[in-house]
């Protein structure tokens, strides 16, 4: 029962300590910030120019807006993959039997790899 060669150089406690030190530094730095900032005043408004703030529902970036560019760029990958997830019970079974056939063929064709 030997020690893992990979994990022997991995010390999570060190990372935790480093995180705490950085957090302490950050907190001290933050507390030295401008003392003129007051909560619940004009300063916290979203628009400095005094425009009306939109409602809470409008200010939040919704989940479906995220990574839009990624999906658009990967359209050629996503279209067939999403279409394959039909949700029809028969298709699940077709994939399963197909996979069984494929693995069976691979086992009987040694030398392929």
């Amino acid at each position, binding site marked *: 029962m030997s020690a893992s060669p990979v994990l022997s150089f991995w010390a999570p406690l060190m990372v935790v300590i480093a995180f705490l030190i950085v957090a302490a530094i950050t907190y001290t730095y933050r507390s030295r910030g401008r003392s003129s900032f007051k909560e619940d005043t004009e300063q916290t408004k979203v628009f400095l120019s005094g425009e009306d703030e939109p409602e809470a529902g409008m200010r939040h970036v919704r989940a479906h807006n995220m990574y839009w560019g990624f999906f658009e760029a990967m359209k050629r990958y996503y279209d067939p993959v999403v279409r394959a*997830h*039909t*949700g029809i019970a*028969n298709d699940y*079974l077709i994939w399963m039997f197909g996979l069984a056939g494929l693995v069976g063929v691979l086992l009987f064709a040694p030398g392929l790899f």
Partner: protein
Amino acid sequence: MSTIITNAPFIAVAALACVGIYIMLSQRNLIKIVMGITIFEAAVNLFLVSLGYRNDGIAPIFTNATGIHMVLPVPQAMTLTSIVIGVATTAMMLTLIVLIYRHTGETDAKKSRRVKG
């Protein structure tokens, strides 16, 4: 000819399995899918029972009988267990189909589907 007769159960197994798999893969009706599964299950059960068959064998309810061919009891026990489990799963599937029908008014796998992607 005799090989055909001794292998007849296994031919039946293959035929039943093909029928079952074909129904499962091609029929969109949920109840027909369950029927296909049941036929496939019957094929598996027949396969197990035929494994234990011995020529001129008798029922294995003897204690240490010598000189008498007995069919193997273990595949029979396995088949019975599998039948019991089959009853439970079939009941489960049919119950869920009843519920799906109540929710959607459909027994078609495609039309009753509500989640995908």
